[in-house]
């Protein structure tokens, strides 16, 4: 472990951004999942409140998603470790999820049924799947996010 820690210290920026990213990244994922749940509730009940919930949840998800993405991009620029490992897959999947959810947001601003059925809900499902795949990339290494970079860096060096 001592050797790994030494490698991490080579990127001071990543040492700051990584813990922030760990806090931010799950927020949009959870909000997008919640929006899918409220979409289903609306499709089942046609009760307009569920549609309003979906719109708020997706909007909040995009807001936190954008913040997380900024932190991730900073980290990408600063850290060779993340660029060398599964970081790319994570970035691409996460950006794809955000783009899909952005389109979903526009669809959800429609009034009434067609805000959800079928396009809104389809995009919600797709966005959640992409976000979950982005989560999945983090499980490549079953340790904390910071340690993941350490391992990735070591793999790249070896």
């Amino acid at each position, binding site marked *: 472990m001592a050797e790994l820690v030494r490698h991490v210290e080579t990127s001071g920026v990543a040492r700051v951004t990584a813990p922030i990213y760990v806090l931010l990244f799950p927020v949009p994922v959870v909000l997008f999942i919640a929006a899918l749940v409220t979409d289903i509730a609306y499709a089942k009940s046609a009760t307009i409140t569920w*549609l309003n919930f979906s719109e708020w949840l997706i909007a909040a998800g995009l807001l936190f998603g954008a913040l997380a993405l900024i932190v991730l991009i900073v980290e990408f620029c600063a850290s060779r470790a993340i660029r060398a490992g599964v970081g790319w897959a994570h*970035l691409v999947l996460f950006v794809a999820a955000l*783009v899909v959810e952005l389109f979903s947001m526009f669809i959800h601003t*429609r009034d009434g049924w067609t805000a959800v059925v079928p396009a809104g809900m389809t995009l919600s499902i797709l966005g959640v799947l992409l976000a979950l795949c982005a989560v999945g990339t983090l499980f490549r290494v079953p340790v904390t996010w910071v340690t993941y970079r350490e391992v990735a860096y070591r793999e790249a060096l070896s």
Partner: protein
Amino acid sequence: MNIRTPLAIAACMALVACSSGHDNFDKSTQYGPDPQLPEPSRTLLPRMGISKVVGWHPGEAPTVPQGFKIEAIATHLSNPRNVLALPNGDLLVVESQKDGKEPLERPKRKVMDWIEAKAHGGTGNGPSNRILLLRAGADGKPAEQTVLIDNLNAPFGVALVGDSLYVADTDAILRYPYKVGDTKVGGDATKVVDLPAGPIDHHWTKSLTASPDGSMLYVGVGSNSNILERGIAAEMNRADILEVDPKTGAFDVFAHGLRNPNGLTFYPGSNTLWTVVNERDELGPDLVPDYMTSVKRGAFYGWPYSYWGQNVDERVRPQRPDLVKAAIKPDYGLSSHVAPLGLAFYTGSSFPAQFKGGAFIGEHGSWNRPERNGYKVVFVKFENGKPVGQPIDFVTDFLKGDDARGRPVGVAVDKSGALIVADDVGNTVWRVTANGATG
């Protein structure tokens, strides 16, 4: 890859931003009793064209046809939205603006607030929510301007029955004792009946008229939503024309399914009520045509379940096939998103004979289509009490390019037979006379 991802995102955003403003549809096919109805078209974002308010510069005025002239008879007002011509030649001008914001139920509301604020310009010149009396001077032009009633709550409709002046605030019909010729009302207001209002009060203008014998009042109450997206409970007694007994305040729904009915007026010499109605948004630039129609007692005009008869609006759930089956078609299409808010039948005699009995319609103008529509006063000829032919542009050039110098709202015909137009964002009242006409 490094650079491609942001580029792809940027490309997607650009695609969204410039969702085509091109519109090949011939909107004149939507005038009259049988408008062409294209398929609903939904883009990722609704197509819009919001006119920035620039106001009238000194010397500028709307354009009227050859043989007519137009002049401003009151300027620097504060959101004049409606006019009532009194039998002695006086004019009542209703200055009005809704106080308070609609509840923030969804993020979209923020965007809509911004759009509405932009399309509406500033707050006018000083106090609003009052009724002004304009009195003609010796040369036939209003010279005198007095505040008849102050401190109203977003008033719109006004109707005179004998010695009673009825004012439709956004939340109630009020009665003031008033004798034509006076410059003051004869006392405090008596509330006739409460009207559906807050906390949302989306379509807040309450158009008002009295039956020819003065025994009943008719008030237009617009919907609280575009197409029921605030739930059915928010629409209690809304999208309706209510019939009110002014003596008791008892009311009944006279007709329903009219999304935002304004310009309530009885056809001269008849017991037929007419209205102009703002139809729904976000089905494309050429849906749904706004319309003018005679109003049948007890009839259902479609909103929100269907439009122009039996064209079902798929956005509304649960659906109501029973109501859709009963929906009747309006009389006359005005084309989509023109936002008709004023209606006056020509009862004067100073305009050429073809105008007699025809309808002037104040079209406030569109926002839900890229290419502007409305922003003018049109004239529709009537024969045997029915609209015929295509509308004629009568007062135009409220737009300069895509900017709004003014937007017409309420219209009236004064004692001399001149057409009066309230211009809310232009903060002006216009008077159109025929050349050679006296007064």
